[in-house]
């Protein structure tokens, strides 16, 4: 249609926005990616880097598995490396109740075709002798992986740019209006943009756009407290997670241990800051030393967090607006958006170009917040 400056405008240059731009460009769409800061900042850049398949929300497996295949093909697809490593993921249970839960997760994973290995205490000790002996049971998934979040989004964005996507950093959006059957956007620098379809992938800042079109979701900002240790010889291959959520850590081949701890920490999207309270750093340090006592004398060199968007049922909003044709939402990834990022981008591109995606996304509809929201058990545990 004449007067349009682009087919699709994407608000939010995080991982979701970058992948969506990439797949839309592959389908021949003219795309403009608008980012208020720089691409891949906040939760896209500062997350733990986990590409975990075990223990996900059951309704998310089709999306997750589709996404993992894209991560596995990253270098060929994108043409650059983002330190993807198929490290496997080890889930630990410390009592019988946790063991039952672990078994429940394993059954769900297996029902979607994921290979899950049950590991008893003797086997744990043999294969991962650096673990403390308290674990009563574990499950191991070899297909789980990790990647470097600091590199991933800029890399995908560069690939999108090579396909013709216009990427505009430091381009905050100040107003969005309906314009014919498309949208008109006003930018902070006064610039205007007209587009046919609009993708709202603005993370912790996404609610404003949704509310502009009469939709809402109880989204709030938070961030996981994370830290990294000095490097030491590479010994710990899989990502290791205690099922109670107290600790998840991994060692990167260059030797550093990266840890994400819970409960999550408060974040301020206005000031663009998510400071890590030192008490949470200490709690995470204790938790790590309990799980892997050999690390007790390992030094923590840096802590960080970043702003992520959360929803009380701990599942994201992904899919078309229910009020406004041409508007698509993808936000509120509750700390597990990294793994499904490529899949979400692919599904959104299919919805926009083909009108539908083969991947079931029903559970992620924004419409679920029209009635009273359910609060996940995970939510109660992972926040204080």
């Amino acid at each position, binding site marked *: 249609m004449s007067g349009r400056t682009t087919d699709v405008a994407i608000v939010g240059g995080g991982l979701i926005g970058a992948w969506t731009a990439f797949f839309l460009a592959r389908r021949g769409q003219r795309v403009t990616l608008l980012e208020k800061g720089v691409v891949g900042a906040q939760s896209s850049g500062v997350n733990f880097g986990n590409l975990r398949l075990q223990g996900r929300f059951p309704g998310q497996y089709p999306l997750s598995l589709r996404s993992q295949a894209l991560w596995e093909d990253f270098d060929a697809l994108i043409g650059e490396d983002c330190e993807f490593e198929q490290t496997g993921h080890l889930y630990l249970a410390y009592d019988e109740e946790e063991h039952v839960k672990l078994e429940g997760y394993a059954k769900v994973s297996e029902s979607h075709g994921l290979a899950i290995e049950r590991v008893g205490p003797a086997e744990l000790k043999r294969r991962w002798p650096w673990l403390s002996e308290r674990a009563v049971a574990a499950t191991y998934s070899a297909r789980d992986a990790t990647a470097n979040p600091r590199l991933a989004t800029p890399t995908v964005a560069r690939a999108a740019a090579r396909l013709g996507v216009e990427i505009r*950093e430091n381009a905050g959006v100040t107003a969005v209006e309906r314009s014919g059957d498309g949208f008109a956007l006003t930018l902070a620098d006064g610039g205007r943009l007209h587009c046919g379809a609009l993708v709202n992938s603005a993370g912790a800042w996404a609610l404003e756009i949704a509310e502009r079109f009469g939709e809402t979701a109880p989204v709030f900002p938070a961030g996981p407290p994370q830290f990294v240790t000095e490097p030491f010889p590479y010994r710990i291959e899989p990502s290791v997670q205690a099922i109670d959520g107290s600790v998840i850590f991994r060692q990167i081949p260059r030797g550093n241990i990266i840890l994400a701890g819970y409960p999550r920490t408060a974040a301020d999207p206005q000031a663009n800051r998510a400071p*890590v309270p*030192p008490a949470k750093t200490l709690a995470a340090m204790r938790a790590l*030393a309990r799980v892997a006592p050999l690390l007790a004398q*390992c030094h923590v*060199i*840096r802590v960080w967090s970043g702003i992520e968007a959360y929803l009380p049922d701990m599942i994201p909003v992904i899919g078309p607006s229910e009020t406004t044709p041409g508007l698509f939402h993808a936000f509120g990834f509750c700390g597990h958006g990294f793994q499904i990022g490529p899949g979400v981008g692919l599904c959104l591109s299919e919805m926009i170009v083909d009108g539908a995606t083969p991947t079931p996304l029903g559970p992620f509809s924004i419409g679920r917040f029209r009635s009273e929201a359910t609060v996940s058990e995970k939510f109660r545990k992972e926040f204080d």
Partner: protein
Amino acid sequence: MAEIVIIGAGPAGIAAAEMLCAKGLKPILIDEGARAGGQGYRRPASDLALDMNRLMGSEAEKYTALHRRFETLLPRLDYRPQTLVWAIDGSTLHLLRDGQAETQPFDRLLIASGAMDRIAPLPGWTLPGVFTLGGAQVALKDQGCLIGNRVAFLGSSPLLTLAAKQYREMGAEIAVIADTTPFSAKIAALPGLLRAPRTLVRGLWYMGAALRAGIPLLHGVMPIAIEGESRVEALVLRDAQGRERRFACDAVALGYGLKPETQLADLAGASFAYDPDFRLFLPAIDSMGRARPGLYLAGDGVRIGGADAAEASGALAAQAILADLGHGQDIAVTRTLARDVGRLRDFQRGLARAFAWPKAQIAALPDSVTLCRCEKITIGEVRAAMAKDLGPVEVNRVKAMTRCGMGRCQGRVCGPALQEIVAAEIGGDGAAAGRLRGQAPVKPIALAAAGSTA
């Protein structure tokens, strides 16, 4: 009674504690070191027979007096040596003492965290045998050790000649004192330096002493490399006449002036502004050292001024605390202190011009030079990351993309050089390159420090 905590038991911290104790207050004085005195007035280990009078030279009297004053003060202080402040959260300090984490609340916080060397990399600077100038002095004053038998002093600082003199007196041979700033720049800066004639005379005297001893003292050099197979064997440079010269040595001390240790001020919520003379981001303070309500900064940890300025600024910040607590302040004392601090810091500003940070030399370094030694990142890797599409144009983002500044030292060593590399790539000044944001822990802490229970 309001809890007043002073971080740093150097001249600034001691002077502040003295002023507060005189008013009947009992501050907590936290120091990372084992013995009070800070870096400049460092005390040797007690079982070491070191002639500190000889080592301190013209400053011996002040050295002795400061330590005597501290001894007098000790019974009226809550002094906590060997205690690291690793994080600040609101009005709580997070400490590490005897390997264990603990906390200390405060109402007023004075940070006098001191300074460290500013380092310009060059080929070979990570070889064993290369020390910072400050490190070379610490080895001498703390342990009575020399960093080598034949030592080259390279950088841009009046302290090069002072340290060389100390080393020579302790038996080391001096291979060369090589300063990257041309002699003409020093002459041009003289008028400004006349604001502190005593310090100026002392500096000239050190230079004279070096020349009298037949030590090559070169100005306006262009460093080429530190050479050596597995450790330092020689310093190679181009002198002001353009000749390449090689000085055999077994150790090199690098000193390009000092930079304030501002990480704690950052964690305590100070705001920062770029200072074009020093080419550093420095915490913003008022004339008495207030950075924000309840936070005071003094000494070389906020503005390089030397020991005398540190003492005066510590006392001045204590006056600010007293005034803010409603104790009233001595206007005459405050005025004198403020004048002294201003004069001495202006002198250092002059020195920063006379002994310039070699920004152009750093910007011109070859790609192969290591920039971040903790993470083994070369200058070339930083330039390559910045040259990519959507490449970073600011130091924090460069750090995220390359790991430069992410290691054990958290960019304290590579930060100033990184700033110049980034500034040169974007064609801007140091302000445009940005400031590496501080994050806890300020120094690495072991997991075991957290203890086993909550």
